[in-house]
């Protein structure tokens, strides 16, 4: 059936071409509908319980989504500079969709001096003299509420905070706002030493810009590297063209699907074209290798026969590898993070689509453009090839130190697993950018001079109006803030308590310290000095809820989450049972989602490994087969996690996916290797030799594909995003590790085991009458017979060959499948034909039971196909199938019994 599927492209070229064309055009129609999502929302699990609370809190106290305009100048407090700032403030207010600009020109302060108190703007208009400017500076710097928010400690930095609203629900709102503000800043920038904007519009705009750049760069670069690698290793232009063709179609289908389904592109999607090109090419490489091998044995219709050969030898492994690779990507759907889920859907579809396209397109192209003759490989070329050198070096070690290799590998894995215990998770969008990126530098600058740009809220809720007129409750706000100061990781916090302490200080006069009012009446009277809008972010209208606004710059999710946890415990203790507290913020939800990464990763890994184990066990009808298939999957993953731990690489949305994707790909090589080994085991009783040959034959495509994958993933190092670059680097390293696992470690384990493929059992084509007629398989089911047969060896003999020689010892038993043989007894130089053996006949059973000299020759009178059963091998390989062993032994006993009875009968005559 698999062969028929492959031959479709060859036998019905027009039909397949038309079908592909229609489907491709359909998907292409989805391309214009593609959307991009760089929003923070996709980093927060949809079912995060904090979401609703955050929306409520943000709705009441204002969003944390604001842009900071950072202005630094050593001469800031001069009439000229302050005049420019005023102009900038006014110009910012004119930008459409800007709802509010807060700067020193909109701030109010309270000034208490010499027994007088005044509420006034920090600066109404630009001062005309230096003296006025210095007074303005004193006013501004005297207010502790503004230090760290609007002014640096030394006064050389000021900030303007711009709130924007997407009132028309514009699609490219971030970009529009960023461009509008940037255009304005570029006009004013020359007037100051440093001026920059940081906020959601810029972050989103940079994410999108970087995403476009990645798309434009990475895909074509991957294609180029692929072509060069294939040309280098395979010296075939067609071998380079075919993966490009299948990848192009896959990319169109995948992105078209995304367009039709409304699944947006995100920063992880940027690596899809590279992944498709690189991963898709590996199977194409295997197919081309098989095609060339098939050409060497083709006679009448070279292309068609070669395609048939390709289909029969590679068809099943290809489908298995498509399945395992797709499973690897699909397992990422367990993540709660939308970013990863969307990528999982897109990548899984891409892998499946690539499989379908490969099955249809490759035969189609080869049937038209494929060569008609096999290439003659120069023997020198073979000897000097990289794969050969690798195998030789591995073989030397395998022959001499197999045990040491296994123990060494185990210890190495344990060491790296131990290193992996230091892994930490992070999900901060700013960490997606390299640290030398201007955006990150600007963020750091703001953190150092003012306060971090990341904000979260601590909201305290009571059920009573005017609860936060009560000094006891205001004191709780202060205690929480004091605790945060002790924690030392958060830059700044502001609450109603700070406002009241400030007013109290100004009323008490010079040199008074900041302290809170003692009575609710005084609290209420102090609050009269604030406009409602001054307190919007800090207390609800009815004073039943208060909000502490916290600014920080912590990007390490693990650190942040642990401090937040500590804070939560303390807050609970401080507020007591009468109040409820929520510590909430967009960046907190994003960072807490990081913890989900770890859990989802473990879940995905466990499920994938289980699935691979089940599939492989079923394929080779043996749990041993399943376990063997896991070895080359687990080793690279252990090494990869260990390296992450050693190099302090965090587990983030990019690196979190490496393990499952790498397993899905690495196991492909194992499948090819095991399949070939299994095939060879049927032709030789020497398992070691079967391993050698399997490795020899599969090494080239395995190493070529692993190297190509490694190079292809390495292309991702050029990504604008650290998460993508880290994914690329780790995936590349994992591919290289898989060479080591597949070619050094797995062959050692393989040589101890004989596998029987399920498909082979199902596909075995032996004359049923022979099976039904032979006494060896009496009372055995078809499955049991096939299993027993596949454990044996198929030997071919020409007419006149001696299958068994008299007076020699051997533990082999034979079952004739086709042809004829004679049993000849030699006594004193005379030869007597004792019997003629036909298909279904069994001989050599005495030697099978106990080691003894053969009693006669068995010579082929025609060409014979016979199954050879080695006693030791049968007992080893069937020990997990005692039922089959019992029946075989019984049947052999029966045959022997019949033989004895015949002898007795004959002797009487």
């Amino acid at each position, binding site marked *: 059936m698999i062969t028929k599927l492959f031959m479709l492209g060859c036998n019905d070229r027009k039909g397949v071409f038309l079908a592909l064309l229609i489907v491709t055009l359909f998907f292409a129609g989805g391309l214009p509908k593609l959307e991009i999502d760089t929003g923070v929302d996709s980093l927060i699990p949809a079912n995060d319980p904090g979401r609703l609370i955050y929306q409520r809190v943000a709705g009441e106290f204002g969003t944390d989504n604001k842009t900071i305009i950072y202005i630094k100048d050593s001469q800031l407090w001069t009439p000229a500079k302050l005049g420019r700032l005023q102009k900038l403030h*006014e110009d910012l207010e004119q930008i459409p969709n800007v709802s509010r600009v807060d700067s020193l020109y909109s701030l109010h302060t309270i*000034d208490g001096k010499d*027994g*007088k*108190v*005044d*509420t*006034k703007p920090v600066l*109404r*208009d630009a001062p005309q003299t230096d003296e006025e400017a210095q007074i303005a500076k004193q006013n501004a710097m005297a207010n502790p509420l503004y230090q760290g928010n609007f002014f640096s400690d030394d006064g050389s930095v000021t900030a303007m905070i711009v709130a924007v609203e997407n009132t028309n629900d514009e699609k490219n709102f971030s970009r529009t706002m960023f461009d509008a503000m940037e255009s304005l800043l570029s006009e004013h920038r020359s007037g100051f030493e440093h001026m920059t904007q940081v906020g959601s519009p810029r972050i989103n705009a940079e994410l999108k810009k970087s995403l476009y750049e990645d798309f434009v760069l990475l895909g074509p670069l991957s294609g180029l590297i692929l072509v060069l690698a294939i040309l280098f290793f395979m010296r075939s232009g067609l071998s380079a063209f075919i993966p490009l063709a299948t990848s192009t179609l896959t990319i169109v289908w995948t992105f078209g699907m995304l367009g039709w389904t409304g699944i947006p592109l995100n920063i992880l999607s940027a690596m899809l074209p590279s992944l498709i090109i690189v991963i898709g090419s590996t199977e194409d490489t295997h197919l081309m290798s098989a095609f060339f091998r098939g050409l060497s044995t083709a006679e009448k219709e070279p292309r068609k026969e070669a395609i048939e050969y390709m289909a029969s030898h590679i068809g099943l492994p290809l489908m298995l590898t498509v399945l395992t690779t797709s499973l690897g990507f699909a397992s990422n759907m367990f993540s709660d993070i939308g970013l990863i889920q969307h990528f999982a859907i897109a990548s899984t579809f891409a892998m499946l689509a690539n499989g379908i396209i490969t099955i249809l397109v490759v035969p189609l192209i080869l049937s038209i453009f494929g060569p008609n003759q096999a290439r003659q490989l120069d023997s020198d070329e073979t000897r000097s090839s990289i794969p050969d050198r690798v195998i030789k070096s591995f073989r030397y070690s395998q022959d001499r130190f197999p045990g040491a290799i296994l123990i060494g590998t185990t210890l190495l894995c344990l060491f790296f697993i131990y290193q992996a215990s230091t892994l930490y998770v992070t999900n901060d969008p700013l960490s997606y950018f390299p640290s030398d990126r201007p955006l990150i530098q600007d963020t750091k600058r703001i953190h150092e001079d003012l306060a971090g740009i990341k904000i979260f809220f601590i909201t305290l809720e009571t059920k009573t*109006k*005017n609860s936060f*007129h*009560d000094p006891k409750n205001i004191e709780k706000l202060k205690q929480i803030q004091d605790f945060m100061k002790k924690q030392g990781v958060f830059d700044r916090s502001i609450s109603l308590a700070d406002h009241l302490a400030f007013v109290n200080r100004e*009323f008490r006069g010079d040199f008074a310290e900041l302290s809170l*009012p*003692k*009575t*609710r*009446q*005084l*609290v*209420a*009277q*102090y*609050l*009269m*000095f*604030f*406009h*409602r*809008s001054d307190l*919007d972010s800090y207390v609800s*209208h009815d004073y039943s809820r208060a909000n502490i606004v916290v600014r920080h710059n912590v990007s390490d999710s693990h650190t942040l989450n642990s401090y937040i946890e500590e804070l939560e415990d303390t807050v609970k203790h401080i507020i007591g049972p009468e109040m409820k507290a929520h510590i909430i913020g967009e960046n907190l939800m994003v960072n807490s989602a990081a913890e989900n990464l770890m859990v989802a990763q473990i879940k995905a890994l466990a499920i994938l490994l289980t699935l691979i184990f089940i599939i492989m066990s079923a394929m080779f009808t043996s749990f041993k087969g399943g376990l063997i298939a896991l070895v080359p999957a687990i080793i690279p993953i252990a090494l990869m996690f260990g390296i992450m731990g050693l190099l302090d690489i965090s587990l983030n949305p990019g690196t979190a996916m490496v393990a499952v994707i790498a397993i899905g790909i690495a196991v492909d090589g194992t499948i090819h290797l095991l399949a070939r080994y299994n095939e060879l085991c049927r032709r030789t009783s020497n398992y070691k030799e079967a391993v050698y040959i399997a490795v020899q034959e599969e090494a080239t495509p395995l190493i070529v594909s692993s190297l190509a994958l490694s190079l292809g993933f390495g292309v991702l190092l050029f990504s604008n995003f650290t998460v993508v670059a880290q994914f690329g680097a780790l995936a590349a390293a994992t591919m290289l590790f898989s060479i080591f696992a597949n070619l050094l470690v797995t062959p050692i384990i393989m040589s101890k085991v004989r596998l029987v493929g399920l498909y082979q059992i199902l596909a075995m084509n032996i004359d049923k009458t022979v099976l039904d007629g032979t006494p060896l398989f009496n009372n055995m089911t078809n499955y049991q017979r096939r299993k027993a047969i596949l454990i044996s060896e198929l030997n071919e003999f020409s007419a006149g060959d001696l299958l068994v020689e008299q007076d020699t010892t051997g533990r082999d038993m034979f079952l004739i499948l086709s042809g004829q043989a004679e049993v000849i007894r030699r006594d004193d130089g005379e030869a007597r034909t004792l019997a003629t053996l036909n298909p279904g006949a069994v001989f050599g059973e005495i030697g099978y039971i106990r080691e003894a000299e053969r009693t006669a020759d068995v010579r082929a009178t025609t060409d014979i196909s016979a199954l050879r059963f080695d006693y030791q091998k049968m007992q080893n390989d069937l020990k997990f199938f005692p039922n089959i062993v019992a029946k075989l032994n019984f049947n052999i006993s029966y045959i022997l019994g019949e033989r004895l009875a015949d002898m007795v009968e004959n002797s009487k005559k």
Partner: protein
Amino acid sequence: MKLFFHIPLFLVTAISSLAYAESSMELNGREIMEEVYNRHQQYPYVYEEQSMVMSDRNGKRDTRKAHRYSRVEEDGTAKFMLVFDFPHEIRGVAVLATRDPLGVMTKSIYLPAFAEQLIESKGESSDGNFLGTDFSVENIIGEKLSDYQYTRRQNRTIRNMQYFTIDVHGLNEDVNLTKPLRRHFVRQDNFFISQTEHYDSHGRVHKRQSHHDIRAVDGDMWRSGMILIEDIKEQHQSLLKVTRRLFSHDYVPAEIFTAEWLYQNHPYIPPEDMDDETEAEEEVVMSVNNEEQLSQLDDEVMVQP
């Protein structure tokens, strides 16, 4: 006979009115403002009971009640005091302002929960709002004419009502080159300022004050029953409703405008003597439905910027 007498009388009255109207057309800005001042702002004793509703950008409202006392002495000294009465936590909070004959304004604030102390507040222009409202003292007691230049602009007709338009500039400003500080819209029939628009340095309206429920209270003197101030930039507004107004010397004795009166009537209570139990809030019994008033005001908004 009577008709013979009435017709000339009618003619004389009509001609006088026309003459008067004609003469008022010839008034310049300052003259108009002086007429405004003389008619409406000089009554020596005014006592008002007021309700204030402050509405923020989200539409949330705060309500206060206060007593207002204003007095103009013979030498031209104007005194003004606002004492808050509700909510109970701010009862006794007072703003006391005095403008001497030379126009120098001093303002003080009394917080009975803070100390037995009148704290001087530095004076600001009419943009200097007090105690979290959108009102400044000048908004309530009027501006000192000698501090400004007044330029009459083109008259306006709005809803069949004729208005003088007066631009206000600082004394040293060039009225043709600089933007005005504010613009008054003065009703031509009664010289009452119905609306004032305050401008920022770019000539944009950032605050608007409008008077409503305008009635004649005594002769040529008119007063409004409601004043609305809208802060257009910050998107909040304050509505002041006069629930009771008395022009009586007995309600506004001179000793009211002293610290002693405040200390006596709204004494400072030290924290240690304060009752810790939460007092029940009094229900606001508003004689006016604020929602209704605000929606009515929409109809009465006179001039769109």
